[in-house]
Structure formats: structure tokens, C-alpha cells
């Protein structure tokens, strides 16, 4: 017959063992989840930056990095990058010196990320260097 001391010892051991095992299982599950989240979020950064570059290449001017102020409008932005809903990447753009801001159809403040890049602005006969601030709203 086993002594009560031995039985108690056995219960204590298995209780602690189960706690450790459960902690280990949960830790591994959370690790896998973290890696999955990492895998899922990084392409967002890549995708949004590649989309953002189209605003510098062809939307508002005919040359790389050149923005014709006349074409810097909400309509041009929506034609150049049409979105269906907030489930897409959405953008708002601001020219800091020219003090002009345009907002995409489905862009709602606030932004998830901003990218600032230099551009050459053509305003009639004037030409100057400005900073284009690209506000990015990720899919909701």
C-alpha cells in the first residue's frame, strides 16, 4: 500500500509538471502566431511603398519626381489610384511648401504610416523643390 506522503508527493509533482507542459505548449503556439503575424504584416510595408511610388512616377506629372500643381487634385489621385473601400490601401498626399493637400476617396484619418520624399513642383512658369508627404492608411 502506498503511503499518503508518497501519494501527495506524486500529485504535487504531476500538478507542477502539467503547469510547465501547458506553459510550454502555449509558448510554442504564441511563437508560431508571432511568426505568422510577422509574415503577414511585412508585405503590407512593401505593398504600400510600391503603391506610394506611383504618385512620384506618373500620376501628377510626365517625368519622375515632377509634380504639375494643376494636376495635383483629388480627382487625379482617385483616377490614378482608384479604391473600392477602406479594405484597400488608402492615401492622402500633402505638398508642404505649396500647402496643398489631397485625400483619396476612402482615406480616413488617421494614418498608419507617413513617407516623405522630395519632388520638383511645376507651378505655371515657376519650378521649386518641395516635400511630398504621403499618408498611408492600411486596410481596415
Amino acid at each position, binding site marked *: 500500500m502506498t503511503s499518503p506522503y508518497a501519494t501527495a*508527493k506524486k500529485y504535487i509533482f504531476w500538478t507542477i509538471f502539467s503547469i510547465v507542459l501547458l*506553459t510550454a505548449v502555449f509558448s510554442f503556439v504564441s511563437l508560431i502566431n508571432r511568426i505568422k503575424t510577422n509574415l503577414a504584416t511585412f508585405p503590407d510595408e512593401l505593398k504600400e511603398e510600391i503603391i506610394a511610388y506611383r504618385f512620384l512616377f506618373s500620376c501628377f506629372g510626365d517625368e519622375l519626381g515632377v509634380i504639375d500643381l494643376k494636376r495635383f487634385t483629388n480627382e487625379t489621385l482617385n483616377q490614378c489610384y482608384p479604391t473600392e473601400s477602406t479594405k484597400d490601401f488608402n492615401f492622402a498626399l500633402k505638398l508642404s511648401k505649396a500647402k496643398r493637400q489631397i485625400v483619396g476617396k476612402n482615406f480616413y484619418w488617421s494614418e498608419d504610416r507617413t513617407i516623405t520624399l522630395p519632388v520638383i513642383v511645376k507651378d505655371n512658369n515657376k519650378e521649386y*523643390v518641395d516635400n511630398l508627404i504621403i499618408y498611408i492608411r492600411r486596410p481596415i
Partner: protein
Amino acid sequence: MIEDAIDLLVFIAFIGLLYLLASSFLSAPLEKEKMVIKHNLEELRYEYILTVMLKSKVENETMFDLTFRAKDDKEAWEKWKKGFSRFSSYFKDGVIVIDGIVVFKEGKFIEGWSTKPGSVIKILPVKKKFFINGKEHTIEFYIEFEYAEHLDLNI
């Protein structure tokens, strides 16, 4: 009882080690991939900024024209500095090298056109090559890791 406690401790240590190994093995390739993509994005960004900088104008002259005249022409150098200042915030963490000579470093212009970059570990090197009157010219931007002239590094 003590033996059981030791067994339990060994088991906990084993699980901990397994977790560490799994986390480093699983995330290492992912992190590497992430770094490569980030690096390429940064390169693309600086390539664009450099292009816009060269395309911009100072008193009706493009920065491209001024860039390769600035070495021998003081007036062109002053204009170049004026034009470049509009972009200096983008380049403040790096080094600009024209025809192998450092002209902008740590957010300051280097006067005299005499500093050679030497052998340095270059991160994010963006290099543009041009031929003007049959002569090759280069403009480079990179972030310097450290000066290592005593090492023969050709990175």
C-alpha cells in the same frame, strides 16, 4: 523529494532551451528576408532622391550640370551647396561622393575637394555613373559603417 524537484528543474530548463532554439531557427530566415527587402527599398528610395536632386535647378542650371563642374569652379560649388541644402535632410546620415571625393558627410559640406573616402564598409551604396565628353563621372551615396583603411575591404 529533492530528486523530483531536480528532475522538474531539468525538465523546465530543457523546455526553455527547446523554445529558444525553435524561436531562433524559425525567425532567423524570416528576419534575413525582411532585412534584404528593407535594404532594397532603402536603395530604391535613395536612388529616387538622388535622381530628383540631380534634376532640380539652381538659377536655371540643373544640379546635374553643377555637380561635375563644382570641382573646378568655385561659383558652381557655391551654387551646388545651395541646391543640395534643399535635400541635405535626406542625406544627413550618409556620405556623398563625387568622382571618388567626399563632398558631404555627417550633415556638413567638405570644402577643398581633397578628402578621399578610402576603404570603408559601405551600407546602402547607391551609385550613378555618367559619361560627359567621353569622361566617366560618378556620384555615390552611402551610409558608412566605419572607417577601416587598415583593412583591405572592397565592399
